[in-house]
């Protein structure tokens, strides 16, 4: 029992900093503003970040694989339009239409981004910028810049309705998170993503299908964007021909705050979850205490810089506090289980997502 608790504690190491920040932030607002800690408000916080959460899960895999995806906002918008068009024409029943939307997102991500990144080895930045730009245009052309109103009950249900007093998007978030956590920790595909991002060449030489892994990673990111697009449609009650230009970058920010390295090979969806919570709590809390919500961007920017700086100094593995501590000259004792001989590979680092 004691062993299990310490194992769980050890496994939190890479995102302990963001965890601490989230807890502190929550406590701060809870004390400051009693209205903040009501169950209703906590639900609101969660529901408000559901779209970001789902997109950021897919983005975590992309970053761990060593990539980047600017196009998820555009894919989400296009998938929303697809859903609106399908329902408007009564082509498919509600649930099937939503599933089809997710598949369309996966195909867009896998074919447009994955193929060009993995097979043609083009820069991820160029590829996803290009697909973002082109898809934004298609959204406008396809809709003629008119919104499509959606009245289908299923679609509205996935965004607005409640089950046992809890909003449905929260269930969706939990399910998506559980799937990602399982894939990350317990499947060969998950291992392949880390191997490909950690060292593309070493992975390829060891027989990892690096190209297929990358295509899959972008398809998964696309599928997440598709689901996020469907939720957005349900929330507004319409498919709006508008691409949220900040969605992709906000998702990347959440992933980075969660301790995933931009250089690939290390990171965790658990950290990303806390990164999203941080953004949600900050937004909601500042609102409640009456601070202009624009301040959240300033704070997010500062925390983002601090966490990446900490990650850099800490070798991308030790988490922010370790890194900052090291930058300031404190040294933490090396863990007993490592045999550090090379000075370059400092023993004080440890990427704790390793499955125990």
């Amino acid at each position, binding site marked *: 029992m004691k062993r299990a608790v310490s194992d769980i504690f050890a496994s939190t190491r890479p995102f302990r900093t963001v965890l601490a920040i989230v807890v502190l932030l929550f406590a701060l607002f809870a004390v400051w503003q009693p209205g903040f800690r009501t169950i209703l408000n906590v639900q609101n916080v969660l529901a408000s970040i559901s779209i970001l959460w789902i997109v950021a899960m897919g983005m975590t895999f992309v970053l761990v694989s060593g990539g980047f995806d600017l196009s998820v906002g555009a894919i989400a918008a296009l998938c929303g339009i697809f859903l609106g068009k399908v329902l408007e024409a009564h082509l498919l029943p509600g649930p099937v239409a939503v599933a089809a939307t997710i598949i369309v997102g996966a195909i867009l991500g896998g074919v447009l981004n994955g193929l060009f990144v993995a097979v043609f080895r083009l820069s991820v930045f160029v590829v996803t910028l290009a697909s973002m730009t082109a898809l934004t245009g298609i959204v406008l052309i396809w809709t003629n810049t008119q919104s499509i109103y959606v009245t289908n009950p299923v679609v509205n249900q996935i965004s607005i309705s409640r089950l046992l007093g809890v909003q449905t998007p929260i269930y969706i978030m939990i399910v998506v998170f559980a799937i990602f956590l399982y894939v990350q920790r317990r499947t060969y595909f998950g291992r392949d993503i880390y*191997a490909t991002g950690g060292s593309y*060449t070493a992975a390829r030489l060891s027989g990892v299908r690096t190209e297929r892994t990358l295509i899959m990673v972008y398809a998964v990111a696309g599928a997440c964007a598709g689901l996020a697009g469907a939720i957005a449609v349900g929330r507004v009650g319409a498919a709006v021909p508008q691409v949220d230009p900040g969605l992709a970058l906000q998702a990347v920010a959440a992933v980075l705050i969660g301790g995933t390295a931009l250089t690939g090979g290390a990171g965790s969806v658990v950290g990303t979850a806390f990164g999203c919570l941080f953004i949600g709590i900050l937004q909601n809390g500042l609102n409640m205490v009456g601070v202009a919500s624009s301040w959240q961007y300033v704070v997010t920017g500062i925390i983002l810089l601090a966490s990446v700086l900490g990650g850099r100094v800490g*070798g991308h593995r030790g988490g922010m506090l370790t890194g900052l501590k090291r930058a300031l000259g404190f040294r933490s004792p090396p863990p007993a289980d490592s045999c550090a001989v090379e000075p370059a590979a400092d023993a004080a680092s440890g990427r704790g997502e390793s499955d125990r």
Partner: protein
Amino acid sequence: MSLESTGPHSVAPLLSLTGLHKWFGGVHALCDARMVLQKTGVVHALMGQNGSGKSTMLNILSGQMRPDEGVIAMGGSRMTFRSPLDALAHGISMVSQETALAEDLSIAENILLGHRLIRGKMGIDWGATRDRAREVLTQVGADYDPAWIVRSLRPDQKQMVEIARALSTDVRILVLDEPTSSLTDEETKGLFAAIRRLKEQGVCIIYVSHRLPEVFEISDEMTVLRDGVTVAEGHKGDFSPRSLVAAMVGTEKPLPLREGQTCGSGIPVLQIRHLSVEGSVSDVDLEVCEGEIVGLGGLLGSGRREVLEAIYGLRRPSAGTILLSGKPLKNDNPLVAIKHGIGFVPPDRKTQGVVLPMSVKDNLAMAATSERQRLSSPRNGTIEEECRATSKLLAIKAELDAEVMTLSGGNQQKVALGKWLLRPPKVLLLDEPTRGVDVSAKGEIHRHLRDAASRGIAMLVSSSEYDELCDLCDRIVIFFRGCVVATIPRDEATETRLAALGGGTKEG
């Protein structure tokens, strides 16, 4: 130190490095090394095996490093070079092995880059700059248009541009570090013509090469380094190819006795017939038997590495066949090779051998599980057990969950090797299997390799260390310029003989 004092009649040598010492941590890289260039207009060859201290000496000479002890003097006056620019200011310029040119700029820009582009009233005067570049190019006998973009040049032309760049400053001593390693015979001739031309103009050239015939053709005098000590120096006429190699290699260590002198079962596993790879390998025949370790020796770029890469599917052969257990093998992908039971330990451990941020277990399991269903779980006990067994077999000093980046070089290399021993392949290809690991780990890895061979794995080991090949292999195949020049059984192999063959000398 005026020009007069460096003239042929003065007593003080043009350049002398004496009593040089340099330590890197505990390693004594230079230990009382010396090199003296008496007069201008000579080609001085600096010889030595890998790790003999040549690069350290060149780095000291070109101002990139400072010696811990020792005197650098030019024309009798003592010098201290604080930076490459400092050395340049004293007329010493180095052209390193890899060309360092801005590929997308013109020849003129590359030659005169830095503060030497000629400025007119209206910014840079391109006309004058090109004229100056053309002038320098003529000095080496190259009639290129200075407006050409460097990317479009052949390797030897790039080399010329680099030499021209060195000459655009007032150079008196030009260091050429393995200038011919990427040149063809024809291109080498052109380079030699340029070197002779520079000699006539009074430029001194320090020439570093592993190719012995070349050295005897172009140089006038030689300095030989071994283990950081200058072991021989003198005029070219004082050396023969045999005595030069003997000086480079030193006393032969007796071959270590090997328990169980198994030289394979005699059943060929891998046969290579007339293999050619565009630009690097031509018409190579090879055979490896079950349980046999065959070594591939030769200089870098001699084709030994490319043969391994072709077998593993990283390079497409332009001709020839690869037979695995008698069946022809067609592959253009490492995965196909793995399926057929071929493993590969790549030369660069940190970027190719292991995934540094992953755990020992995940690294070990990677090759064996490349055939698994992607969405199935890697946590079933058997793989974990196999990893544990392999880790124990190789005595990897780390927990299975430890990140590989926290391991020492030797243990990392054991992980890179261990991933193939989980499911032993028929053929294991190894490229520089002990590069950058310490002596004790090296001996340990050799022992594990021989163990694995005694269990029936056929091995091809490519190495630039001739003593490693002597220690490890049952048979050694020497490559030179893409061809097999000799195959030597273990009991006839000596380091001297391998080094001479690898350097291009023919056995009578």
